[in-house]
């Protein structure tokens, strides 16, 4: 049986509250019964709840790396605090009584086994070429109808943009902004949620309480982006509407920007699967995307084979957030059988279904160090080339190798071997502490000849391209300046 440590249980918990509540159950002695089967594959017990009957909960390790949680409580959080509590009780060394496997669990195991077998059979049959799964059929007329609606939506959006530009940002008052907001709501009927969210972003910027000039500068960039989205989107959709057999665009993130939610099956069909990869998370942040109405748990990962920097985005819409798992910082190395890569720019979004995790070793840090790009000139060229596209991600993240972190006045700079600089700014993503506070605390070794994960931003006002330091990776450890 695998080692059940508190850290492991924490990683299973859907959120910080569940960790605390699970531990509290153990502290308060809420478990009237704690049992373990002879083979150690099943932990089960009774936990006192608010009702008269205790909750019967169990954690099944019949598949070691994929525990099954069962509980009679009505909570929608999964796994619930009771099943987590059992695990904490185990990890904290509470006494578990040896017991027979309960009949209901035995039945459930049997059923699951049968399901598994059926799946295998089906897979085998498919492999043999018999009864191949029918390729996903697309209802063409429905597709055309949808695209027509999308085009209509884009026209509506374009009209709105042109009108805004025609009248000028200076003439905007609360009432007109309200009108734009209403229009954004209306865009919901045209199957372009991505474009709709971008418009909402614009509304949020215009509503913000800040220096007018700053607001205008940002709004102009957003208008440019929206306009580009309308134009690119329209030509793409028109092309596909006239020939529905054309494959979906995977060259850029256009589909996603219009609002398509990629399914793993689609990505697989389009050949966007990277086999057998090992990823190490270099940075993590959970934030709120107000325009899209969701929490975003974002992770930045390095592919330990080729050094590509990918991003994971776990999206938790406000409405469903309570019952969804909050992602957290991952310290181990994730091994993915199949890595699904979304279309995108420098940092493609990725997902994987089942990952095996192993402890990170010093050699992994060393590997990251060797994968880092030591030529700032080269990095800058790639970044500039990417961000000049109005629809591109304006904050690419890169792994660079630096010679030293030094300072000019109060500003820190990264220097590469050729003496080329990257200026460190602090204000792209909200860090736990300002970088000016953190860097001076570090050890001299951390500041010389190491790798760093940096996020770029081009500031239109000053015309400066600067970076935020997300992490420093030395030969023996990682210093995370985000989370």
């Amino acid at each position: 049986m695998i080692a059940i440590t508190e850290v492991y249980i924490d990683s299973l918990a859907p959120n910080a509250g569940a960790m605390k509540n699970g531990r509290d159950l153990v502290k308060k002695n809420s478990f009237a019964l704690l049992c373990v089967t002879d083979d150690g594959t099943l932990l089960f017990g009774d936990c006192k709840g608010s009702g008269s009957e205790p909750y019967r909960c169990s954690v099944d390790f019949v598949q070691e790396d994929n525990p099954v949680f069962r509980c009679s409580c009505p909570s929608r959080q999964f796994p619930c605090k009771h099943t987590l509590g059992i695990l904490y009780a185990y990890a904290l060394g509470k006494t578990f009584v040896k017991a027979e496997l309960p009949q209901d669990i035995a039945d459930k195991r049997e059923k699951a086994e049968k399901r598994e077998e059926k799946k295998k059979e089906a897979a085998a049959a498919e492999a043999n070429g018999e009864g191949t799964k029918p390729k996903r059929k697309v209802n063409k007329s429905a597709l055309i109808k949808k695209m027509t609606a999308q085009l209509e939506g884009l026209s509506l959006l374009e009209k709105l943009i042109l009108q805004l530009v025609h009248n000028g940002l200076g003439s905007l008052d609360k009432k007109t902004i309200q009108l734009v907001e209403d229009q954004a709501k209306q865009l919901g009927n045209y199957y372009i949620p991505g474009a709709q969210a971008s418009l909402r972003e614009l509304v949020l910027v215009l509503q913000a309480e800040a220096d007018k000039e700053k607001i205008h500068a940002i709004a102009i960039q957003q208008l440019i982006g929206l306009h580009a989205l309308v134009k690119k989107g329209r030509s793409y959709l028109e092309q596909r509407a006239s020939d529905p057999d054309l494959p979906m665009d995977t060259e850029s993130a256009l589909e996603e920007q219009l609002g398509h939610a990629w399914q793993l099956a689609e990505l697989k069909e389009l050949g966007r699967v990277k086999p057998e990869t090992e990823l190490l998370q270099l940075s993590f942040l959970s934030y709120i995307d107000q325009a899209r109405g969701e929490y975003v748990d974002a992770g930045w990962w390095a592919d330990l084979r080729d050094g590509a920097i990918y991003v994971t985005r776990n999206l938790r819409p406000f409405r469903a957030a309570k019952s969804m798992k909050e992602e957290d910082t991952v310290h181990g190395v994730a091994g993915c059988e199949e890595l699904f890569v979304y279309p995108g720019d420098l940092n493609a979004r990725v997902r994987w279904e089942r990952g095996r995790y192993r402890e990170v070793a010093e050699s992994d840090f060393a590997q990251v160090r060797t994968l880092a790009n030591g030529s700032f000139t080269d990095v800058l060229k790639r970044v500039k080339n990417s961000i000049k596209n109005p629809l591109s991600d304006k904050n690419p993240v890169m792994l660079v190798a630096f010679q030293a972190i030094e300072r000019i006045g109060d500003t820190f700079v990264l220097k590469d071997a050729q003496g080329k600089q990257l200026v460190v700014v602090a204000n792209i993503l909200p860090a736990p502490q300002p970088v000016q506070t953190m860097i001076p605390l570090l050890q001299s070794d951390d500041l010389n000849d190491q790798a760093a994960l940096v996020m770029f931003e081009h500031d239109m006002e000053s015309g400066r391209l600067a970076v935020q330091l997300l992490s420093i990776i030395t030969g023996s450890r990682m210093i995370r300046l985000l989370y």
Partner: protein
Amino acid sequence: MSVDLLLNLQQEVSRLFVAGSAMAEGDLRLDKLLPQLKRLGDSAPVFKRLAEATEGLLTSPRDESPAKLLELATLLSAVLHTQGKTDLPGEPQAFEGFGIALSTGDSFRKLQPLLEALTSKGPGRLEQLRQAYEDRSFLDLRALPSLGRGLDDSYSEIPDFIQDKLFPEVGADAAPVLRGQLNLQGGKGDARRLQLLYQLRGEAALETVLEAANSGSVEPKVAAIGILGAFAEQEPLILDLSREKRKEVRQAAFFALARLGSEQAVDRLFEAVSSKDRELVVEPARQCSSRSLQLRIVAHAADVFDRYLSSEGSMRTEAVQQLHINLRCLEGSGNKVAATAFPLLQRMLSSKAFITTETEAVQEIAAELLLELNLYEADHFALELQHEHKNKFIGFSFRSAYKLLTPAELFHRFAGELKGRSASARELQRALRGIVSGQLKSDEDEWREPFVPEQAWDPRWRQLFVELDLVDLVCAFTAYSDHGVSNYLASKLAAGVRKEGNEAEILLALHRIGYKYAQDLLMTVLEKESRYMYVLDWRLKPLIAALPKSYIERLRQFAAGLAYESVRNEVTAIVEAIEAAPDHTSEESGTGIWGWIKNKMS
């Protein structure tokens, strides 16, 4: 330069976005840039396109202007994005890091709530810090600066916790952060930073401490002086500071001097005792371990007393106040100066001229000090005071008598004085209750029997209390085997003693002596009060738990009638425990099953 031209163009484009593209047609300032763009366009295709787009905007009619402006802006933005500057003017300088070895191993879900608790306001934050302390997640480099800032929190329990629990565990690594945040002109948080710096770095932080003592604002200064009290060589500085303008600073200096205890320090403290700072110096003088200071204060008090006897009016009032100070300075060190102080106290308390209403507070302290001397003669003198000054000091006499006499002698001498409503009877009762409550002191964690030790008192007291109707004392003097008082106590319960709040004691006493209707009475009392009971007396819980199973039905009814849910839950839990308890324990005395229940409910 072509970049400047681009920036100029960008400015004009931004201006038009704000003003509205409707204003673009033939715009003069934009028009001015056109020739330059065209000229550069001859050699660079990008500029050619920019020139074309600009011209398009300048010449297009109003309704086409938005598209044209966006087209120009898109092109310009793309060009500018390739022109980002990455170098800063100036030569980069290498620097030394502080070399803090703490890791950044906390996960988001651990670190973020901690930082939130440290940087926000609102409830539940201390709980968060406690949890971080428990799971060690505060030991993260990224938490350190916020921990330091948390010392400024206005909810003082948070900075207390950070200062006492968290930073000591971070250790010397925290010093650079604290030093960086320290503002010697700051407030309470900076005082804490200074204390921590000294605690973490010891004498290496002395320079900073001295700076604070010399030129800091009040709070850091006070903290600094507190630290300097440990350094004999800082005596001159502290002496100077004891004459500062702010009284907080002077008092801190007095405390530091008391700690130093040197000759000069004692001189200064003694000087302060009779100066305008005398109120400030009382506490420092009490803490000072120097016997010579106390002896001087006694001698000085004797002089003042003479002055009191020989003066009138305001001089006399002033002498009373000074005596008050002097005697208070001696509180706690009575037996160190016993031999010297006794004659003075004796003189004071036997002097008719001293026993006036004006000096009441001083008399009280003097009598208290007399007992504190712990001197046979002093106790004896206190006993003799019993009938002096209209029995004024009878309480003190009783206390000394308790030390000097056998239980029987004590009863013999004082029993008669307890009767009646005179001031001296009340005084005597107060002294008696004082001794008794000292013997009864108990709390929930440390169980002590709520009655006085039998051998310490004469058994006749109890009957006397029954006669005098002093219920609480009757209870306290009723140990296991006393059946004589059961009727009295039961009748008191029946009469309703709710106002005095003695039921719990009576019930416990009745339970102790094994009164046969005790359980019934318990139920009656509970039922009578069910409507008002908002908290269940913890002393009653073991009694309820000791009820036999036959009471379960009655208890359930009682629980159902309770108005407050929390009490109801408690009672229900006890009832369930009684029900579930193995049969044999329920017949025994309460503690067995109570221990079992407590264990279950914790």
